[in-house]
């Protein structure tokens, strides 16, 4: 089992944990956290693949883009969550199934 294989096994494990959190969480902020976990694993995968192939700098530039986009997505999601809390008073994903409140 080489280093890269162990690395990828660990990355897939983290991805799976993030996916479980996404499926099982009812609190919207836990959903955002689970998404962040999944994106961390994606970034790790990019860097690990870059190192395995020898193109670490190309992988770094792509990973930078991923980090920026993911951060903006998290920021917007949190702003939306604050608004949802303000308008509807709760953050339970089971209750929020209609656009109009």
């Amino acid at each position: 089992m080489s280093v890269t294989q162990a690395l990828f096994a660990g990355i897939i494990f983290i991805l799976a944990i993030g996916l479980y959190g996404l499926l099982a969480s009812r609190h919207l902020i836990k959903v955002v956290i689970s998404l962040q976990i999944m994106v961390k694993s994606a970034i790790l995968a990019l860097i690990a693949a870059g190192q395995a192939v020898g193109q670490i700098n190309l992988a770094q530039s792509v990973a930078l883009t991923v980090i920026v986009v993911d951060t903006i997505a998290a920021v917007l999601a949190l702003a939306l969550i604050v608004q949802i809390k303000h308008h509807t008073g709760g953050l339970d994903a089971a209750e929020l199934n209609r656009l109009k409140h």
Partner: protein
Amino acid sequence: MAITIFLLVGAVVCAILAVRSKPLVAALWLAGLSAIAAILIYLLGAPQVAVIELSVGAGLITVLLAFAISMAEDESMPSSLIPQPLAWFLVLLAGGLLVWLILPEIPNVSQQVAADAPFVVQIWDNRLLDLIVQIVIILAGVLGVLSLLGETSKETHTEEASMEGLR
């Protein structure tokens, strides 16, 4: 090798604890996961992205989450909407398929022949379009957040005005 395994185990533990805790504690475990990921990225030979990941992931995201949690509540929810066995099954199936797909291929991966340009050249010359798109996305995100949060203040103003009118 040993350090990598140790860090990976630590990352997995952080992730599991993040998923199982209440939101505020989960944010702290996420920060831990980001830090460990940053160290791993540094060890793999990508110091620039490691620094960025540390400051953005472990710093910025954690602060934002703490801010959002303070405006929302920290209560823990009742049990999940989806039956737990179903969630476990889907996750294990997806993870298993991914492992089966990826791990056997890894020994066949060979080093690319073309020389890897330095980081600065990659970012600013080859992927200039990425940078421009990133700037556009950041601007869009800023505008979006401003318009989202701007609604709160306008609403409270109109509420107060209507309250005044009623009185």
